[in-house]
């Protein structure tokens, strides 16, 4: 065991590797995943009390394999009448696994085995299977790859543990029903499946990022989980530009976290944030990563452009020092690569900052139909109207924005903006 690494960190790092090995050998996500969870629980109880084993990974594999044998045996007993063949499986499980284990003698940290990386990636693809809803993909990924317990995931999403348990067990059933095997996706599907994995990591990150500050002390920190997954994915696919950019985008966003929320939980917009509170180390890492990615990329993707935009913001000493012409250029590229009303809205802000509020407002006009009920559209209009000196118009736009906001901190912020515009 590496010194300085807690039992929990080590277990969570090993969880997808051990699960990957079991899946490769025996398949069946539901049984394998249950077996690994039980082995992790055993380890969490035993290791702190009696010391970590010399080879934690092999220990986990042995225990998980035995648990799997138990699970398969009891399932087989249940199905004996229906499926006689099934009974033949369990006796083969243990000797095979033990022989394999004694061969390898793998070390406990990093991606020790030659196929571990592939296994973990295959596991990610499976957890983000298109047959699942995004909330099921998220839950399954956090459990099978992130090594979180069902209780921790339930707490993070503020749902009862029984609900989360149902969601995870149903997700596993759906994967089985969809006929998915523990194998990498076909070359034809691979890009799309990879995008789903990236999106799940980003969803997890954003879920943590929008939660209010006071609560993040109690909630399992989902932003950290998202970054952990992005780091893992980058380690597995070091040459994929969008994966590198996704990690960079998360780091550059996370860097502003402390400055983004006031002590009372109120939201502080980018323009008013104390930039001295931004995390320089995260900015440096994120900027270096996106810079390097942009020099080697063969195709610009949405994460690369969003990370590049975030880097321009993070590198600026103040709002007025920001290179808005560059940001506008990046938004124009983004609108080509990944068109959508929210991208157009971001572009409208850049237009306003580069060419004045009137030009920005004109750019929002065409979005009025699509985004009429979206709070961000009205918040941007409020901001641009305020810039142009129309205080009454700004107040009314902020009020509308507050009505449509679905996040309490954002709603409070927008209501305050409305009041402030009316008073001053």
């Amino acid at each position: 065991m590496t010194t300085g690494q807690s039992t929990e960190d080590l277990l969570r790092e090993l969880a997808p590797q051990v699960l990957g090995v079991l899946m490769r050998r025996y398949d069946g996500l539901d049984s394998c995943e249950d077996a690994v969870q039980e082995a992790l629980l055993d380890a969490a109880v035993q290791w702190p009390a009696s010391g970590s084993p010399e080879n934690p990974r092999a220990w986990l594999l042995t225990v998980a394999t035995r648990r799997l044998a138990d699970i398969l045996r009891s399932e087989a007993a249940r199905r004996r009448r229906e499926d006689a063949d099934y009974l033949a499986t369990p006796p083969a499980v243990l000797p095979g696994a033990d022989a394999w284990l004694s061969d390898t003698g793998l070390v406990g940290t990093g991606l020790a085995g030659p196929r571990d990386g592939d296994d973990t990636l295959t596991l990610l693809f499976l957890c983000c299977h298109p047959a699942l809803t995004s909330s099921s993909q998220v839950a399954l990924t956090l459990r099978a790859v992130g090594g979180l317990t069902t209780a921790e995931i339930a707490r993070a999403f503020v749902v009862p543990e029984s609900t989360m348990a149902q969601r995870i067990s149903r997700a596993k059933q759906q994967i089985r029903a969809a006929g998915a095997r523990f194998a990498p996706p076909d070359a034809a599907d691979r890009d799309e499946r990879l995008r789903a994995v990236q999106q799940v990591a980003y969803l997890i990150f954003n879920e943590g990022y929008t939660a209010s500050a006071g609560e993040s002390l109690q909630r399992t920190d989902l932003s950290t989980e998202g970054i952990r997954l992005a780091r893992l994915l980058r380690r597995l696919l070091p040459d994929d530009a969008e994966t590198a950019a996704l990690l960079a985008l998360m780091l550059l966003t996370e860097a502003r976290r402390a400055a983004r929320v006031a002590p009372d939980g109120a939201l502080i917009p980018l323009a008013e944030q104390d930039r001295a509170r931004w995390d320089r180390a995260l900015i440096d890492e994120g900027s270096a990563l996106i810079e390097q990615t942009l020099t080697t990329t063969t195709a610009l993707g949405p994460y690369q452009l969003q990370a590049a935009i975030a880097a321009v913001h993070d590198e600026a000493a103040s709002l007025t020092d920001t290179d808005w012409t560059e940001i506008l250029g990046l938004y124009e590229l983004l609108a080509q690569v990944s068109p959508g009303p929210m991208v157009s809205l971001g572009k409208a802000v850049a237009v306003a900052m580069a060419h004045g509020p009137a030009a920005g407002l004109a750019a929002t006009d065409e979005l009025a139909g699509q985004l009429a009920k979206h709070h961000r559209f009205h918040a941007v209009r409020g901001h641009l109207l305020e810039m142009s000196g129309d205080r009454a118009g700004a107040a009314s736009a902020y009020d509308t924005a507050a009505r449509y906001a679905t996040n309490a901190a954002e709603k409070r912020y927008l209501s305050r903006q409305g009041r402030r515009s009316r008073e001053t």
Partner: protein
Amino acid sequence: MKYMLIIYGNEELWNSVEPAEQQRMFAAFDEFNKTHYASGELLGAYGVADAAATKLVRLRDGQPAVTDGPYLETKEYLASWYLIDVDSEQRALEIAAALPSAVHQPTEVWPILHEASRETGADMGVA
């Protein structure tokens, strides 16, 4: 994203429904609950007692004064509510449309904005 689905009941309307039809409705609601609990989308399903059983509590000079009846004098009262947690508003609307009562009555679908933390009691501003 969490949503509250609210059904308003009308005593007269419900009493005019044939007992056999009432039984069929109950069974359909059980089925609805089972399906959506199993998917992990339904967090809770509740129904209130008859409006006649409702009490109203007011503080008068710092003392609780209890009177009978709901606050509003209407024919339609809150009857049942469902707390769901789904991927999108679209999905919330689908589930609302799948309620067995949907053929008789509209369902209000409210996005949940505030949820108090169990640990601190503070608003978590659920997105």
